[in-house]
Each structure stands twice: as C-alpha cells, then as structure tokens.
C-alpha cells in the first residue's frame, strides 16, 4: 500500500501498509525495550478479572479517566448564556485555552472567553493589576454588554478577592461604575463543572437581584405570572432550549430562560462571525426576580442557585434531566400547575407519538442491560427512560455524583422491577467502569466520546449520549428533552441495537440466516 496522488491514503490506511508495518515492528523490537508479548497478554487478561476489579475498586487516591471536568468550565458555560456576555476567567491563561477548545470540539462553534493571564509575579503579589488591565482591555476590545468573572485554581489558591478587585478596577476606570460585572469564585478543586455552572448562575442572579455587589439597592420583587427556566450544564443545550421554548410557546406559558446558550453555540455560517448571539437579556435576568416560580432541569447543577431563588420567595422545582414519557409528563404537569396553562392537544399528541414509538420498538430494548455514565442528572434521566422501556440500567456511574445522588438513583431502581439488579456508583471513574463491564457485562454502554475506549477494550457497544461528544457531529442540535427529545434518544438507542444485530448476523453462510430485512 503506497501513497498515490489519485487516491491519497491518509492515516487510516497509510500505516497499515507493509513498509510501515515492518518499520514499526523493527522500532519496537530494537529500540523500545518492550515487555514480552506473552506478559502483556497475561496482564491484559488479568485486568479483566474479578481480582483486578477488587484492586481497582480499592483505589483511594488515583483517578483514571474521570467523567468530570473542573468548575471553571461550567462557569464559562453559564456565562455565555447571557446576552452579549463574555466570560472573564481570573487566573492562569492556559485554562481558558482549554475551555474554549473543549467547547469548540463539542459544539463545532467558536467560544469566546478571556483570561486575566496571571503569571509568576501575580502569584506573588496577587492578580489585582491583571484584573484592572484585563477588564479595561476586554471592555474596549470586545465591547460586551456584561463581563462575567470567574476564577481558576491559581487565583483561588492565592486567595484573590473578586469583589474587592472588581470594585478597585471600577474605581480605576477599567469599566464604568454602573457596568455589570457579576462574579463567582469557582475553585477547580471543589466539585466539578456542574458546580461551576451553579456558582456562576447564582452569581449572575445575585448580581441583578441583590443590588449588584452593594452598589445599588436590592430589587423589590413584584410577583407576576411568569416562570424562570434554567437548563443546567447540558451538551444538548442548543436543541433542548429550542424545544423547551417551543413547548412553552405551545402552552402559552410566559417564561424567562436564565442562561440561554442555544444561539451563541449555533450561529449561522453566512459571512459574519457573531461573537455574541442570543442569550438572556440583562433586563430579563433582572426582571426574572418577579417570576412566580423557577424551574431547573438539572437539580445537581443548580443546588445553590435554587436555594438563592427560593430565598426570594419563588416556588422552585428541580428535575433530573427528564427524558422519556413519565419524566416529561411530570415536568409538563408541574409547568401547567404552576402557570395555570393547560397542556394543549398538540403536545398530548406528541406524547402519544412517543408512546407509540416505544410500543413499536420496545421488544428490541426490553430486558437489555445498559451501563450509563455521565453527569448526575443525565444519568438519572436516562436510567428512568430505560426503566420505562423495560431495560435494565445495570451500572449507573457519575464521577461527580454525590451520596445523595446515589440514594436518589437507588430509589429510582427500587421503583421498578427492572431496577432490581442495578447498581449505582458515585465518585467512580471510567477505569472502574472498565472493570464493571468486564466482570458484569452489559449489552450496551451509554456515555460520551471517552466511552469509545471502553467500547474498544470491553467490546460493549457505545451509544453516544452525554458531554463531550467530539467524534460524532451535530447531535447537540437536536433535543433530548420533551417527547420529541425522547424520540431522538429512543432512535439513537435503537439504531445502535439494530446495527449490532446486523453486525453479528452478517457472515455469509454462517450467521446470515438472521440477517433480516424486517426487524
């Protein structure tokens, strides 16, 4: 196999050619000081055993392939959901390069975010000058409507005080005194990206409702009939937010979305780069205090935020990333009860269509075992949907799941006969999951892109649902919430099941008696 201009071979094929294979074999043998292949094979087999699993689960310090990121990532996610807002991350600059890359790899979109670029001198003297210069530069250069400040672990370890720094920067004229600079401390060594989301969402709400860090009187709440909606850190935010707005509009609900990322991460290619697009207007963010209730789609992304909102007299409701019939029913009925708006026939018909689709296909899912990992709320939403389908969410794992979350998952298992043999794993990582998949195999794995390593090692087919998804394109543009979102999840699962059935029945003359054209 050699390179040629007519049919250019790239890495997929090029290196499989004999000249490269020979070269690589020689390299290994002569220069890499490799282990005996039999020993490698022995250890590989050993990692599949119960004995290895026990050693693996005995880990107390090491984390391998975690399914979580750090607070500042969630901070950026929350901030860009507001109109004309640029996240300003106070601390080392490399972090910001990472967040921007991470989001761009998932959404296939630009993500604008600035850093205060702290270096050694700031580590010694504090980052005040970086804040003063940084805010001034960001304000002049990118002309944001709001700058949302969060921190990296560096700024947290040296103890920079955002409130004082921002006040000083305003006194020095970096930005006008009345300019909106909400802030939140988001230490990377506490919680995970969902905690960072929570802290920044709380910080922004607090800023607008509670007197802008003591610079204005606190807002007085005059309750109206509107509701606030918070999505949480969600890889499907583009599709989901649009679906929620469609459902609310169909119901005639008056609402404010707090943190609407659906436009900024789905801008058109039409010759213009939009650094800012859509988002919750700052006026709406302030007026949201008057809503009668606030709904969060992800309890564990909004624990502090909802507590703050509740203090202002709102009725608050937290869901767990509802997916499927019952969870969507509960969500819509809650919205209906709070707002007094009926669920219209059109939505009822959508529900019927999802039930119809599940009835059509559940024979292929019923009794199948699944492993799920991801953020705590997503795990709950997906596990509940699988139980509805008669499937068993055998292993449910969240690296950033708490004890309380684990109890909630267990309660969900206990609510269904299909949950009888299912287990929840809080605080475990994907290397733990690897042992689970070897020692207690399941039919399918649901997770993000990193799950492909588990698929490769254990042979468990991966259904990609979660964040980040780097190696499949555009799924974030479709909802997983609402009945239509449930339909999307159902089809995603079914496609993989059917592909697997076909893949295991396609050997001519051996297994292809089952290679049916109708399934």
């Amino acid at each position: 196999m050699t390179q040629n201009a007519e049919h250019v071979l790239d890495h997929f094929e090029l290196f499989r050619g004999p000249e490269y294979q020979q070269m690589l074999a020689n390299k290994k043998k002569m220069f890499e000081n490799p282990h005996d292949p039999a020993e490698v094979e022995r250890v590989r087999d050993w990692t599949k055993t119960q004995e290895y699993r026990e050693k693996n689960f005995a880990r107390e310090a090491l984390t391998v392939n975690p399914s979580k990121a750090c607070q500042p990532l969630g901070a950026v996610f929350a901030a860009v959901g507001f109109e004309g807002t640029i996240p300003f991350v106070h601390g080392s600059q490399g972090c910001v390069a990472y967040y921007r890359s991470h989001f761009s790899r998932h959404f296939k979109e630009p993500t604008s975010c600035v850093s205060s670029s702290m270096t050694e001198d700031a580590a010694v003297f504090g980052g005040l000058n970086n804040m003063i210069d940084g805010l001034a530069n960001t304000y002049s250069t990118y002309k944001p409507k709001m700058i949302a400040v969060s921190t990296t672990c560096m700024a947290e370890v040296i103890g920079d005080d955002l409130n004082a720094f921002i006040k000083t920067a305003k006194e020095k004229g970096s930005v006008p005194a009345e300019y909106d600079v909400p802030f939140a401390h988001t230490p990377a060594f506490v919680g995970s990206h969902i905690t960072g989301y929570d802290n920044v969402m709380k910080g922004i709400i607090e800023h607008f409702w509670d007197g802008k860090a003591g610079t204005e009187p606190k807002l007085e709440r005059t309750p109206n009939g509107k509701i606030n909606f918070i999505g949480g850190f969600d890889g499907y935010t583009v599709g989901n937010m649009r679906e929620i707005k469609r459902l609310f509009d169909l119901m005639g609900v008056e609402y404010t979305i707090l943190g609407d990322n659906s436009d900024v991460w789905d801008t058109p290619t039409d010759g213009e780069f939009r650094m800012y697009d859509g988002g919750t207007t700052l006026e709406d963010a302030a007026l949201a205090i008057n809503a009668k209730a606030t709904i969060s789609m992800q309890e564990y992304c909004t624990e502090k935020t909802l507590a703050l909102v509740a203090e202002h007299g709102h009725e608050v409701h937290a869901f767990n990333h509802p997916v499927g019939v019952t969870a969507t029913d509960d969500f819509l009925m809650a919205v209906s009860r709070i707002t007094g708006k009926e669920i219209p026939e059109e939505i009822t018909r959508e529900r019927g269509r999802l039930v119809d689709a599940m009835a059509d296909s559940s024979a292929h899912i019923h009794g199948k075992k699944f492993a799920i990992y991801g953020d705590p709320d997503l795990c709950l939403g997906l596990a509940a949907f699988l139980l509805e389908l008669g499937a068993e969410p055998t292993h449910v794992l969240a690296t950033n799941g708490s004890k309380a979350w684990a109890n909630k998952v267990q309660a969900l298992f206990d609510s269904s006969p299909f949950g009888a043999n299912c287990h929840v794993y809080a605080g475990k990582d994907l290397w733990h999951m690897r042992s689970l998949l070897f020692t207690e195999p399941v039919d399918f794995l649901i997770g993000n892109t990193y799950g492909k390593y588990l698929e490769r090692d254990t042979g468990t087919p991966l259904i990609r649902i979660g964040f980040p998804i780097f190696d499949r394109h555009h799924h974030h543009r479709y909802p997983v919430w609402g009945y239509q979102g449930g339909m999307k999840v159902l089809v995603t699962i079914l496609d993989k099941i059917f592909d697997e059935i076909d893949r295991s029945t396609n050997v001519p003359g051996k297994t292809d008696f089952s290679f049916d054209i109708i399934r």
Partner: protein
Amino acid sequence: MSLVKTQSVAEIKVRNRELIEEVLKVYPEKTAKRRAKHLNVQEAGKSDCGVKSNIKSIPGVMTIRGCAYAGSKGVVWGPIKDMIHISHGPVGCGQYSWAARRNYYIGTTGVDTFVTMQFTTDFQENDIVFGGDKKLSKVMDEIQVLFPLNNGITVQSECPIGLIGDDIEAVSKVKSKQYDGKTIVPVRCEGFRGVSQSLGHHIANDAIRDWVFDKIPADAAPKFEPSDYDVAIIGDYNIGGDAWSSRILLEQMGLRVIAQWSGDGSLAELEATPKAKLNVLHCYRSMNYISRHMEEKYGIPWVEYNFFGPSKIAESLRKIASFFDDKIKEGAERVIAQYQPLMDAVIAKYRPRLEGKTVMLFVGGLRPRHVIGAYEDLGMEVVGTGYEFGHNDDYQRTAQHYVKDGTLIYDDVTGYEFEKFVEKIQPDLVGSGIKEKYVFQKMGVPFRQMHSWDYSGPYHGYDGFAIFARDMDMAINAPIWKMAKAPWKQESAPTLLAAE
C-alpha cells in the same frame, strides 16, 4: 476572493501598515503601545521580523496561548507511551488535554501503553490545605498495583503545586528508591510559570536531562549495538503519524533511527539518545534545549530540518546526509528520486486548483514558518503569519528563510486582531487552531487546523505531502464556501474592492 494579486508589494505594505494602525485603535493606550511591538510588516533583507516575542500576554485581550503544563504534559512528555503521566492537581487540566493532540502510537493502551489515558490526583480542597504529597505518594503505589507494566512515571504539576509548597521531588526520589530505581520524573510545569507553553517545553526538556539522562550509570551497556548511522528524531510528536512518515525516509536513505522524541516514543528511546551520531530536530522551539544539552555533554551534533513539502524535504534530506558518508548521501538522492514521480503527480493534480491562493497562518512551534514551503510547492502564497509562543530565534529563521517582503507578522495575536486582519485581507485559507476554526468558517473563509491537521495527517514527509495537498484543496475548493451568502442577500462583488 483574495485581493492580493491585484496589488503590488508596495501597496500591500501600505495596506498592512494601515491595518495594524487600525486594529491598535481599539485598545486602551497602554495596551495599544504594548501590542504595537508584536505587529509588523516584513521588510526584505531584515534579519528578523521586527516584532517582540516571548513576553507576557496582555490580560483580557483573548490570547490564543496556553500554559507551561500544556507545553510539558501536552507536548513533550504526554506522547512518551510506556510511562504514566500524572496530571497532578485539580481534574480539569488533564481532562481538557486528554487524548486531544493525536499523538499516534502502537501499544496496548492501559496495559503497556498509556498515552490516551487521563491519570490525575484530582485535588480536593483538603489537598490544597494540607498539601498533596501524601496523595501523590499513594497514587504512585496504586499505579504500581494496577499498571504493573508501566516503565516509568512523570508528575506533571498543575498551578496549585508550586503555590502550596509541595515537594514532588522528594516524593519522586523516595518512590523511585522504593521501586528499585524506577524512573520517576517530577516536572515543575505549573501553568502560571512563564508566558506560554514555551517555558513548559523548556522545563520538560530539563526534566529529561536531570531525571533521565543523569540517572543513567556512565558504564551502562547500550541496549543495542551502536552503528555509524544512528540518528534520533527530535521534536516530532507524531500527530496523525508525522514521525512515522518522516522516519521511513531516514531509514530508506540508510540511517537508523534509534529514538523518536516524543511521538510514539518510549523511555528506552530517551535513554538511548545520547548514543546517537546526529540529532535531527524538527520542532526547534520545543526541543532545542535538549539538543543543545546533548551537543555540549555528549558531543552530538544536531541539525534542523523541515519535512513539509518536497522542496524542503529534499533540501533537508541533503542537509542531514551531509553529516554522513557517501553511502548516506547517495541514499538521500535515491530517496528524493524515488518519490519524485509521486510528488510530480500530486503537484500536477493539485497545483492548478490552488495556484495563486493566499494563506494566513497563526500556529505554534515550528509551523508558522515550516509549512510555508509546502504551500509554495502548491503555488500558494503565505501573506500573513505569526507565532503563538515563538521567540526571537524563531522570527529570525522566519525572516531569513521563509517569508516574503510585505508579509503581515503578528506575534501572540489576539482574537480581535486576527479576526480583523482576515476580514480585511480576505485570504483564501486560514491555518490555525480549533479555537479559531469556527470564527473564520462563520466568516465564509476556508480553514484548516494546523495543530491537529484537522484530524487528518500525517503532513510530514512525502507521503504526508500528498495528504496536505488533498486537504488544502478540499478546504479551499469545497462547494460550500460559495453558499455562505443567501442568494437574495448577495452583495455585488466590486464593493469589496472599493472598500480597500
């Protein structure tokens, strides 16, 4: 699309100078003054590009740069495949850099090879308050139990480590002793050190010197029979297989590659390198330090080369061969001749489709200059370039060997500057990173990621050039770029010219 062809060099220089003046206007005065030193229009005959470099980024301007940890873990150490690299500190750094750089390797991941895994001490508040040395120590013990075939461990420090006063060197020494002299390398690459990835490269190079080279007993027998033709590839990270499509050429000309630094590399290869007769250095920026060290300490000469595009490849093969006897020199000529038909076919196919197209680059390492020759082999012209974390020696090389009179130069470009430059110059292609990709595609400008090869590659060597040419063609000539404007919103073409 490009307007460059319609203008003389003098006109282009005037336009570029005006463009620099214009972008600087957006900044506060102090910032404008500082940024002005990083922007220039290349003057023919100058020994450098006339810009300041390798100094601190300005807060709040949206630098594209990363950090020292990225330079050490992400670039230099991460690809060493048989060692376990611990991201020491909070979870994020290791998570965002997990398998993101496409450093290809052969091995059984999780058993004897660990590149695409994320090992972290996942610092919690307690570790910050009470220190993380105990946890690090325990992490090493657990690694020894669960990954017994690992050949070594490195500790890649994240920001908090240097701030809370942990002694990772002491932990590494104790554990190395406990595990029979196992190679355990503490790396002080905290993200706040230095001004970019660059210091991370340097720190990582120094860590190899101090914790790998200096631990090899002077009387240690070589693990292989040395030959007169032993070379080491330094500064190739095997992105999409780059080092492989380079290695094959060196072997075909009669050399023996005893080590790859660090793509698809192993600890044994690092340890073998002091036995090389010549170090061939691709990414000067990230590995000149260790090359200079090996020259001083072991007397190994080093030579820079460029394996992008047939012109530079041939020049480089001859330059490398010049360090050896006639057998190798003939070998170089043989290799050049062997691939000539392929190169002729690639250029015959793609050059007519790319001739006269203009490119703007903003990349890291060696690429802002090294890829220029490959574009020129396709009849394309680089009209603007800049380094994410280059030093003055990079800009000297760029001025002396690569860029043309009038090229726009931008060091540590900001998001705003880059956007404005591209908007005004309207190149046919932008080559930069993932953070920039979608910005320019939204603007309707074709783009290729020139860090990750946009998930393609290899781009190095003759085999790589065919892929490079194909990819540039598919980016520029994709039908989609004619569809960016809705037909009912098409502007008449001459307005653009008039605006210039």
